[in-house]
């Protein structure tokens, strides 16, 4: 019983990290419709940046995390400006953009591999400050994740609904042709979205790095989870994606009770399968028919 509660707590915290990552992915996907594979690579780069900052440059942990987020934002801008925009300018369709995203992702991950090698690394050497409640350990990191989620999602919601740029972003997400007719310049918005999305991934990565360390193989797994959560939540529904990510984090962690942890990706895949068969529009989305 105590184990289950612990797994639940861990799951909520993991869910929080996934939610940050997923909302970043969903933000880009909902507005640009690009299957932004490179999002996973941004996550990986930020994780290794945290490691480099903390272990190689000996920065204090928080500083390393902040620096990593900054690196992620810059990377997000670079990807939009130097990868997606040139492709779009040559008339690339969504399929080609996605392949381009794959290419960028592979290049980034291989560079990380060349610089750091494949071994898993730990970032934090001291144990985390923690509290034990009813036999369950709640660490400072758990609390930090939840606090960050609360603050960031509130800020994001305010940004999207109260600012001019945010409203423009929502207009483009709802109806790109109409938005273009009304004179909204998508180029600038794509940069903003790219930076925001990457920033969210860049926040999620240090949190994971500080918790369980980093590994090169994580890029695609976390991308899979983010994409699945976006679909399970319902395409076009940002809070739904975040909620679904929380759910997946909890389900994944609870599944450790019965399955060995190596099956975590399979668990996510099974959830996807269930939704594709039973409810393809996701929890909150609407199934768009073609036209």
């Amino acid at each position, binding site marked *: 019983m105590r184990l289950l509660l612990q797994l639940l707590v861990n799951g909520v915290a993991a869910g929080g990290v996934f939610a940050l990552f997923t909302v970043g992915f969903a933000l880009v996907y909902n507005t640009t419709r690009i299957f932004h594979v490179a999002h996973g690579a941004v996550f990986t780069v930020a994780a290794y940046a945290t490691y480099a900052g903390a272990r190689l440059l000996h920065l204090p942990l928080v500083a390393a995390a902040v620096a990593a987020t900054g690196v992620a934002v810059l990377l997000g801008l670079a990807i939009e400006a130097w990868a997606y925009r040139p492709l779009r300018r040559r008339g690339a369709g969504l399929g080609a953009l996605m392949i381009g995203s794959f290419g960028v992702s592979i290049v980034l991950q291989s560079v990380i591999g060349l610089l750091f090698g494949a071994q898993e690394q730990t970032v934090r050497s001291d144990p985390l400050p923690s509290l034990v409640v009813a036999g369950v350990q709640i660490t400072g990191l758990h609390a930090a994740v939840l606090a960050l989620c609360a603050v960031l999602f509130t800020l994001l919601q305010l940004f999207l609904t109260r600012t001019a740029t945010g409203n423009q972003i929502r207009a483009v997400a*709802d109806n790109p042709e109409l938005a273009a007719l009304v004179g909204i310049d998508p180029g600038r918005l794509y940069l903003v979205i790219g930076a925001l999305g990457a920033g969210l991934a860049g926040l999620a990565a240090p949190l994971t790095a500080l918790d369980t360390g980093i590994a090169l193989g994580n890029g695609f797994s976390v991308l899979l989870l983010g994409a699945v959560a976006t679909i399970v939540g319902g395409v076009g529904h940002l809070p739904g994606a975040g909620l679904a990510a929380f759910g997946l984090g909890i389900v994944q962690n609870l599944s450790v009770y019965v399955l060995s942890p190596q099956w975590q990706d399979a668990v996510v895949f099974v959830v996807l399968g269930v939704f594709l068969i039973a409810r393809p529009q996701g929890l909150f989305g609407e199934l768009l*028919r*073609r*036209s």
Partner: protein
Amino acid sequence: MPAPLLELIDVSRHFGGVRAVSGVSFGVEPRQITSLIGPNGAGKTTIFNLISGLLPPTGGTIRYQGASLDALPPQARARAGIGRAFQDPRVFQHLSALDNARLGFPGQSGERLAYGLLRWKRVQTEDRLLGEAAEAMLARVGLAECARLRAGDLSFGQQRFLSLVRTLAMRPRLLLLDEPTVGLTLEEVGALARLLRELAAGSQTVLLIEHNMDLVMEVSDSVILLVEGQIVAAGAPAAVKRHPKLMEAYFGAGHGP
């Protein structure tokens, strides 16, 4: 009194807050040309998408040959005889004009993978015959020399006629034509009008969306005026032509709503 071939009953389609189509009801009589007219954004293409099954209605029902279409996906509606030509010709650019036309023919055994692989010779023969039929159809609209050309290399007008040939190859019971004269030269519009007259003489049922009023008045048996998602007038061409709402819809109000 024969039942209409197609019947829309109180059909609505909303997108978020926008009511693209509201409470639309009309019938399309068999062997007649019915025209759907109205200003841009009135919901005409949305109605076509609803009939083709590319969009589900938010309200109401559509009946075809007496039965409801609700459960049928687009390809089933097409097989039941509803042929759809889009506003944009949407020919397959990388295929030849001949291949485009051939794709219209229904029931091709060569389109089933297993059968095609096992009965190679028979499929080749059937396809050759279809090719001859397709060439004949292309010749009827003056595209005989273009048969082997890449569809993407044809002029816009040629692509328009090609897409019509492709749809007609389906032998549709109901032909949905969306603004066929857009982008055509005067000469081509004349050819299109001739084609429509031929179709009418051949008892083809057509639902036509058009802006070209001369053409509409000339070929239609019945006209429906759609404004902002609702039917505002319907009846014989001469009657609708004189309807005050028509002037208002096209040239703006000077009057109140």
